[in-house]
């Protein structure tokens, strides 16, 4: 890993308007919107619903950061920058590793801003263990999503990147239960959602905010780890193929 390279990567993302709006502002706005539309302050389960929405929007922000991070790969492939980097001592592993780490780091604004707003504006209250579980759990659980973003970036062109990542993000978001409660969905959709990393990402941290729809913790870990291994292998293979063919 090359720290100065990583620093530039992250600086580049923060310069992008799309990133700031989509990845930083959007999850916060959507959190505030949903926390005031889905539930009334007078409702008995208000606090729990707001906390669930908070977790959902943190996860969404991380996912958006991961795919936006992935778009860089498509651009760098198309522009020939990846070829230029291959003429430096930076190894393929460092390049991909750097992209993965930057995908994790650029998710931090959403991961921290949404709960901050939740505390200050909506009065969400969790204990220390709860916060730790939500923040650390979501952050580490986002690893497969970061890899998914990289894989899309490796396959897509700069033109197709936007629609592809939108479809993946919305599809996996809805079916994973990030936007609407799963219990209202048809049975087949609920079956599909059981396969998605987004579903298990939420499941991983849900016990900190609600007692409903709980999933087995070891299963959540196992499924997310499985996605990580498979996506990691695909990303590596694709990079090898890419660099052999050029």
């Amino acid at each position, binding site marked *: 890993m*090359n720290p*100065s*390279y990583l620093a*530039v990567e992250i600086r*580049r993302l923060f*310069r*992008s308007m799309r990133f700031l709006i989509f990845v930083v502002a959007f999850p916060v706005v959507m959190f505030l919107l949903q926390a005031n539309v889905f539930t009334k302050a007078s409702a008995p389960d208000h606090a729990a619903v707001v906390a669930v929405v908070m977790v959902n929007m943190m996860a969404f922000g991380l996912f958006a950061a991961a795919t936006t991070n992935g778009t860089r790969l498509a651009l*760098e492939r*198309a*522009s*020939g*920058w990846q*070829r*230029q*980097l*291959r*003429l*430096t*001592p*930076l190894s393929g592993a460092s390049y991909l590793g750097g992209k993965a780490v930057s995908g994790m780091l650029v998710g931090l604004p959403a991961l921290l801003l949404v709960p901050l707003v939740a505390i200050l504006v909506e009065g969400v209250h969790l204990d220390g263990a709860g916060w730790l579980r939500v923040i650390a759990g979501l952050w580490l659980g986002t690893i497969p999503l970061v890899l998914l973003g990289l894989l899309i970036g490796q396959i897509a062109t700069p033109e197709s990147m936007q629609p592809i990542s939108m479809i993946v993000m919305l599809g996996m978001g809805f079916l994973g239960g990030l936007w609407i409660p799963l219990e209202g969905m048809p049975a087949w959709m609920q079956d599909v959602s059981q396969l998605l990393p987004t579903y298990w990402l939420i499941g991983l941290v849900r016990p900190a905010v609600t007692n409903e729809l709980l999933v087995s913790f070891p299963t959540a870990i196992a499924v997310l780890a499985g996605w990580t291994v498979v996506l990691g292998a695909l990303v590596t293979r694709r990079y090898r193929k890419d*660099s*052999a*063919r*050029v």
Partner: protein
Amino acid sequence: METTQATRGARDVAAGAAVRLSGLKKHYGQVRAVDGVELTIAPGEVVALLGPNGAGKSTTVDMILGLSKPDAGEVTVFGKTPGDAVRAGMIGAMLQGGALLEDLTVRETVRMVAKLHRTPMPLDQALQRAGIEDIADRRANKLSGGQKQRVRFAVALVSDPDLLVLDEPTAAMDVGTRREFWKSMYSFTDSGRTVLFATHYLEEAEEFADRVVLMRAGRVVADGSVAQVRALAGGRTIRAVLPGAGEETERLVATLPAVTDFELRGERVAISSSESDATLRALMAAVPAVHDIEIGAVGLEGAFLSLTSEENTEPGAAR
């Protein structure tokens, strides 16, 4: 004329060659992009790789840089594999097209690449050598084509490489910036570094290279000093009528000085000559009745095209 730089190179620097390609082949599907290239470049040489589009220049360059694997044959750069040479920071390259990040400033881009290398040259020196100090704080998407090329040049030389490979370096430049570019190139090669540049501007090769390698259809068709290639390329065509021409005339024309090629149709002859004055004097002495003489310049481009496109061009024609 007997010894080309290539054979001299092969003899002197077989061990310490800057670049050595042997039996290099690469095909894409049915297309044999590179079809058996042999080339040795000595340290300190400035070599132009000339050829029309599709001649295999870029594919050859990619293999030298280790960006693509040869199907057959071997590439060594200073005795190492391209990958090892790249990791050691010995190769700097200016690739065709893009290769800049739109959202970084010029200085950030060059600094980023410098940080990836173990022994880069000071950042300001790289910016100054490429002549881009004045635009160092601009983002890449605010640059003209020529300015982008100079930034790519800075990216190529910031690692302080021993071998600089430039693929069509002046493609997006106007005449003025092209001149500026080559001036900064010169200061770089003064320090004894090896340069290989691919181009399809013959004038550029003539003016800036010590040695010219011509490629066509994946092969080296001519390889020699600039003077040798200039002789090939700077030829003229003499057209004339030779009264009573016959087989004997054909033999006579063939023995005239500086004739590179000729065609006799009836009494009309078209002679390609590398030195038309000498050819013409000898022709007039041998055939006093010659009349309707016209001399036309083949033109650099025409000669280059004929050299790189004719099917009957012998490999190594300049040797």
